[in-house]
C-alpha cells in the first residue's frame, strides 16, 4: 500500500539538523569566525554584498558562513533579510573623483594626472599555487609611499570630454528621481538608471558571459578601459531638518568607465561613447562586465542594430538576477505530480491514436 508523504514534517526537521552538522564539519577543527571570513575571504564577502544589494560586511560574512561558502545562497540569504529593512533615506550621488583610491589604472593613456596606481591586485602575479600559504606565516610588511596620493583624482574621461571627443556625461532630461528596483518592478522600456541598477546587482557570471559575447562579435562595441578605480568613498546625506550634508560612513566601490568608439549617427557626431560600471567592494571583473553590457544596451538610443543578446534589454536584464534564476531553475525539484499526471494522460491518448493510425492498413 502506498504511504503518502506523511511524516514530511519530521523528515524536514531532520534535514535541517543534517545541514547544520555538514556546515560545521569536523568539530576537531576550529570554527570559522565572522572576523576571519571578513578579513580573509574579503572578495567573497564583497560579491555577496554586491549581488545582495546590501553593504554590510558582518551580515555578508554571516550569510557566507550559513551558506557554507555558497556565494549564490549567501546572496539569497542577504536579500531575504534586506526585504525587512526600512528605507531611511536616499544618499546624495557618490562623487567618485573624491574617492580615496587604492587602485586606479587607465588602459587608454600611458600616464594620466595622478598616475597609474596599481594597488592590491592579482593582475601582475604569476598564477602559481603558493604552497607557503598552506601553513600560517607572517605577511610581508608594506612600505609606505614617499608621498601621499592627491585628495582628488579627476576622471580620465573628463580630460577627453574637455576636448569634445567624449559624449557628455549628463543626467537624463529633467533629472528625474531614479527608479528603485528593490521597491518597484522592472518595466520596459527600461531607462538607463534602471538598467544600471539591475546590472549592479546582477549575477557576475551572467554579466561576464554577456560582456564576453560582445567582444566575440555579438554586439561589438570597440571598448577601451578608459579608467578603473577602486577605493573608499564617503556616503553623504542631506537631511531636510539639518540643511547641510553629513557623512554617514565610507564604502569601498569599484568603478569602470569604458570608452567606446562611435562613428556617429542621426543624432550624434562621431565621438567616443561611455559604458559605465559601479559595484560594491573590489571587483574589476564585475565592474568591467557591467560597463560593457551597459554600453551594448544603449544600442537603440545610439541608432545601432539591436540583434544581439547583450543589446536586448528584456533578455539581458530579465535573466541577470541569480536569486530569481536559481530559484526558478531549482523549483523543478518540487513535486509536479499533478501536472505530470495530466501530461501522462494526454501523451497516452495521443500515443494510442498514433499507434492506431500506424496499424491501420494503407490503401
Amino acid at each position, binding site marked *: 500500500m502506498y504511504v503518502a*508523504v506523511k511524516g514530511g514534517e519530521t523528515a524536514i526537521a531532520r534535514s535541517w539538523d543534517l545541514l547544520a552538522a555538514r556546515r560545521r564539519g569536523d568539530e576537531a577543527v576550529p570554527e570559522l569566525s565572522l572576523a576571519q571570513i571578513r578579513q580573509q575571504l574579503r572578495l567573497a564577502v564583497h560579491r555577496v554584498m554586491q549581488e545582495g544589494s546590501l553593504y554590510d560586511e558582518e551580515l555578508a560574512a554571516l550569510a557566507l558562513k550559513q551558506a557554507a561558502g555558497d556565494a549564490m545562497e549567501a546572496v539569497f540569504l542577504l536579500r531575504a533579510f534586506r526585504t*525587512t529593512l*526600512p528605507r531611511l533615506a536616499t544618499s546624495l550621488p557618490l562623487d567618485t573623483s573624491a574617492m580615496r583610491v587604492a587602485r586606479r589604472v587607465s588602459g587608454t593613456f600611458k600616464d594620466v594626472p595622478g598616475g597609474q596606481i596599481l594597488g592590491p591586485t592579482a593582475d601582475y602575479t604569476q598564477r602559481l599555487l603558493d604552497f607557503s600559504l598552506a601553513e600560517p606565516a607572517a605577511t610581508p610588511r608594506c612600505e609606505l609611499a614617499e608621498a601621499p596620493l592627491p585628495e582628488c583624482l579627476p576622471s580620465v574621461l573628463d580630460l577627453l570630454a574637455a576636448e569634445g571627443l567624449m559624449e557628455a556625461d549628463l543626467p537624463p532630461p529633467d533629472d528625474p528621481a531614479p527608479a528603485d528596483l528593490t521597491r518597484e518592478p522592472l518595466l520596459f522600456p527600461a531607462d538607463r538608471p534602471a538598467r544600471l541598477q539591475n546590472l549592479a546587482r546582477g549575477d557576475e557570471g551572467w554579466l561576464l558571459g554577456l560582456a564576453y559575447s560582445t567582444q566575440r562579435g555579438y554586439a561589438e562595441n570597440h571598448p577601451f578601459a578608459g579608467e578603473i578605480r577602486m577605493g573608499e568613498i564617503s556616503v553623504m546625506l542631506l537631511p531636510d531638518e539639518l540643511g547641510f550634508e553629513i557623512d554617514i560612513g565610507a564604502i569601498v566601490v569599484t568603478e569602470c568607465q569604458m570608452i567606446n568608439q562611435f562613428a556617429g549617427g542621426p543624432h550624434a557626431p562621431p565621438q567616443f561613447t561611455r559604458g559605465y560600471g559601479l559595484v560594491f567592494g573590489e571587483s574589476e571583473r564585475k565592474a568591467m562586465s557591467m560597463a560593457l553590457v551597459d554600453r551594448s544596451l544603449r544600442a537603440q538610443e545610439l541608432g545601432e542594430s539591436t540583434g544581439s543578446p547583450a543589446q536586448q534589454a528584456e533578455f539581458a536584464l530579465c535573466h541577470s538576477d541569480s536569486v530569481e534564476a536559481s530559484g526558478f*531553475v531549482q523549483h523543478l525539484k*518540487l513535486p509536479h505530480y499533478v501536472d505530470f499526471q495530466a501530461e501522462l494522460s494526454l501523451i497516452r491518448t495521443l500515443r494510442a491514436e498514433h499507434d492506431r493510425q500506424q496499424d491501420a492498413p494503407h490503401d
Partner: protein
Amino acid sequence: MTEPFSPPSANLDDRWRYNFGFLDENTKRMLRRALLKAVAVPGYQVPFGSREMPLPYGWGTGGIQLTAAVIGHEDVLKVIDQGADDTTNAVNIRRFFARVAGVATTTVTRDATLIQTRHRIPETPLAEGQIMVFQVPEPEPLRTLEASEVETRKLHAHQEYGLMHVKLYEDIARYGHIATSYDYPVMVNRRYLASPSPIPKFDNPKLHRSPALMLFGAGREKRLYAIPPYTEVESLAFEDHPFEAQHWSQACALCGSSDSYLDEIIADDAGVRQFVCSDTDHCRQQREAAQ
C-alpha cells in the same frame, strides 16, 4: 532540532525580530493597493514591487507575499502543494506563517479562511468569505507564444488573443485535441486572457463563478492578478471542440472517490499502478464518511 533563522548568540539579536507576516506594513500596503486594482480589473496582471522572501523564487514567493498581505490574527491558514498538505514545500510555507504570523493552521478545507495553493483547487467546494492564494510561476498566458513583455502587454491592451486561438486550433489540426492539460488558458470576465496557474484543466471549472476570492501571485515575475467572487471564467475552446476536463476510468484506491483528481502511483517494482486522490483532505473525509 534547530530551526533555521533562530536568534544567534551573537550580538545581532535586535535584528532578528520580524514583523507580523514577515513583511513590513508599508510593503503590505503596497501589496494591498495592487490587490485592490487586481480585484477591480479581473484577470489583469498588475505589476508590483515583489520582494525577496526567505523562500526561493519559483517556490511560492508570489503566493507567500499575497498571503502575508491579507493574513490577520484571526485567520486559519491551509497550505497545499499538489493538493496535499504534507508535501515538503507546503509544510515549509505553513511553518513559515505559523512562525512569523503565529496563526492557526489547518488541513481541513472547510475550516480554512485562507488557502495558499500550488497546482490544485481543493475538491471541497469553496465558500463565500474564503480566499484562495495561487502560486504562479508564469503569469503571462501568452509567454510561450511571445517572449517579449512589451509585446504581450500590447496584446492584452488590444484584447488581441488571436495567437492563443491559433495555437489551440493548430493543436486540433495536428493531434485532434487541444494538447494543453494544465495551466489551461481562461478568459476572465470576458476581457482578459489569464493563466489559472498550473492547475490541471480538471480544476478550471471550479474557477467559474466561485464564491471565494481568488488571488494569484507571481513573485519572480512581479505580477499579481485576481478573480473576484462570482466572476465569469471561461476556459478557451471552440464550438465544435468544447472544453473537456480530465476523467479517469478508475476510482481512488483509498477512498473510492470517482469524481476527484487522481495521482498515479507506481506501487511496486513490477510497475503496478495505483490511482489515489491528489487532494489528501478530500480523501480523508471520504474515508471517514465511509466508516
